[in-house]
């Protein structure tokens, strides 16, 4: 119906096309190609740095992210905003807090929002996907009918612009950090559901499924022990890409005034949204969190795209 679904379906079919010539498993081959890809290495390095910062941030930050500099110290400067200087590498924000420390501590919140929302979309989406996929491959006529109904619903959700879906979820749940995570996560559910179901359908016709059926293996065992493990790689690729969109989408929600209302907790999206108000006086305050968001999103996108390419037999040379 749409390219969004086309793209998902294409990714879903990838694992079904196995190559037997090399004698190695598909995952091994993909990993080998991945290591040789410059994109993947750069992406992985960015992610590694980001994760280290997110974990260690609060300990290596020179100041507390909420400690405010004295007003008397701030005012003598020409503007209210203090730019970069020896003791504050990135200057102070609009409340006199050390921007560098806030960036470091904020990395953790940003990662948390990205990971939790993607996990939510991943888990719920995969549960729906496994159900629909199992019903479609082994459930007989009734199963196929259930699958059709579920997928119609999923396609309907996919048809809505994601930001709009997130805004409506946020409107129901009120303003909080949890809301942002849920809103961003809900958007991902239909993508994961459709992806896993498609991958399972592609696996469903393969010989080993037929063989296990002939051997009398129980259906639950075929689905959970054979089909699902073989269908997971496109889902993992999508999860990596989703982390990037989740971080950007969370920032957009913050900008629309639906972000975390607790200003004491630094998070890049919220910091960016707040800095917009002082853009004329201190544009750099908006630039720092943006650069953080862009580089992080780029890291996940690079790794995800490289993984997709590594899995895609068409792009192999």
């Amino acid at each position, binding site marked *: 119906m749409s*390219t969004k679904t086309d793209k998902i379906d294409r990714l879903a079919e990838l694992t079904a096309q196995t190559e037997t010539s090399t004698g190695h498993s598909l995952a091994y081959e993909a990993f080998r190609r991945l290591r040789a890809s410059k994109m993947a290495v750069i992406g992985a390095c960015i992610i590694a740095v980001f994760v280290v910062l997110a974990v260690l941030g609060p300990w290596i930050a020179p100041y507390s992210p909420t400690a405010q500099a004295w007003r008397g110290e701030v005012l003598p400067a020409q503007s209210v905003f203090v730019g970069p200087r020896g003791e504050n590498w990135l200057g102070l924000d609009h409340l006199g807090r050390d921007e560098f420390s806030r960036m470091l501590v904020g990395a953790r919140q940003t990662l948390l929002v990205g990971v939790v929302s993607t996990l939510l979309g991943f888990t719920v989406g995969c549960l729906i996907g496994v159900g629909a996929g199992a019903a479609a491959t082994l459930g007989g006529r009734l199963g196929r009918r259930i699958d059709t109904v579920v997928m119609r619903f999923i396609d*309907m959700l996919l048809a809505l*612009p994601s930001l*709009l879906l997130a805004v409506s979820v946020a409107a129901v749940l009120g303003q909080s950090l949890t809301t942002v995570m849920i809103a961003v996560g809900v958007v991902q559910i239909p993508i994961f559901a459709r992806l896993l179901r498609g991958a399972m359908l592609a696996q469903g016709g393969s010989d080993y499924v037929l063989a296990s059926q002939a051997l009398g293996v129980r259906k639950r065992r075929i689905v959970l022990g054979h089909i699902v493990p073989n269908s997971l790689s496109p889902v993992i690729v999508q999860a990596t890409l989703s982390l990037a969109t989740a971080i950007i989408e969370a*920032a*957009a929600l913050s900008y629309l005034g639906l972000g975390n209302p607790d200003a004491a907790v630094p998070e890049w999206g919220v910091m960016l949204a707040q800095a917009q108000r002082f853009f004329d006086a201190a544009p750099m305050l908006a630039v720092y969190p943006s650069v953080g968001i*862009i580089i992080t999103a*780029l890291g996940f996108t690079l790794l995800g795209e490289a993984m997709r390419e590594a899995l895609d037999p068409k792009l192999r040379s």
Partner: protein
Amino acid sequence: MLRLVVRRLLQLIPTLLGLSVLLFLWLHKLPGGPAAAMLGERATAADRIRIERALGLDQPLWVQYGRFLKRLGELDLGTSTQTGQPVWEEFVQRFPATVELSVFAMLLAIAVGIPLGYFAARRRGGWLDVSAVSGSLLGICIPVFFLAFILKAIFAVNLGWFPSFGRQTTGLNATEVTGFYVLDGLLTGELDAAWDALVHLVLPAMALASIPLAIIVRMTRASVLEVLGEDYVRTAESKGLHRRVVRGRHVLRNALLPVVTVIGLLTGSLLSGAVLTESVFAFGGIGSFLRTAIDARDYPVLVGFIMFIALAYVVLNLLVDLAYNLIDPRVRVH
């Protein structure tokens, strides 16, 4: 063709019905329910009870849903709590601005994206290819509203090349015919007004075009690369056909099929980006209206907006499918 149109239109019905159920439930789950949604945040408890009775909210859910559906059918989306005007009228009044911006952004993305993607694929691995690919990756990763802010700061505030907000210089007194200001200027012969509106469009359109541009470049590039490897291209070349003929007729024409689909669907998703871009440039379309509606918890506008966008999205999908049928003979057979 007609049968296809009818079939696709019939397929729309369950989708739209499902959406309306979702929206109805959503409205019920809102803090305070539909009564609060109508009255806004400052309603007293007595007001609420009165309104709930007047609206029939004490009746069974399915009766309420029936009424909700009937109102939707009559395009009655309620009244905006911010302006006191019917939501539908507010939308109709603001829609041209958003359409104008989206169309302009899309044209920009197509005009730059397709040639860029094509030449990047032709010289795979060259500097143009590398910068196009990395540029498009970057384009997807930059938050749209941040890009809008940067563009505004550089080109409007610092350099002063473009206006920083609005659709028209105030006090211009241009005649309004269709609501599309550039078109209006051309229709009435007020060329200065058309130019003025166009200049106002440049920066918001650039910001809005960033994501579609990135996607179009990547799609075109991938698609051209795929087609270049096809046997029929080699055959055409070995037949001794002129290079230009092969490129135009065999490569480009086949490569653009998937790109056309993407373009159609991106147009629908532009509306999301328009919310963010319009509010940065105070553009006065439904995007900036929604932004203020979110701030003011103007639920009738939110519900109306979702239904409106969903409808636009679904109709766009249909049009893309039909267009695809016209372009691609292989699809037509099935």
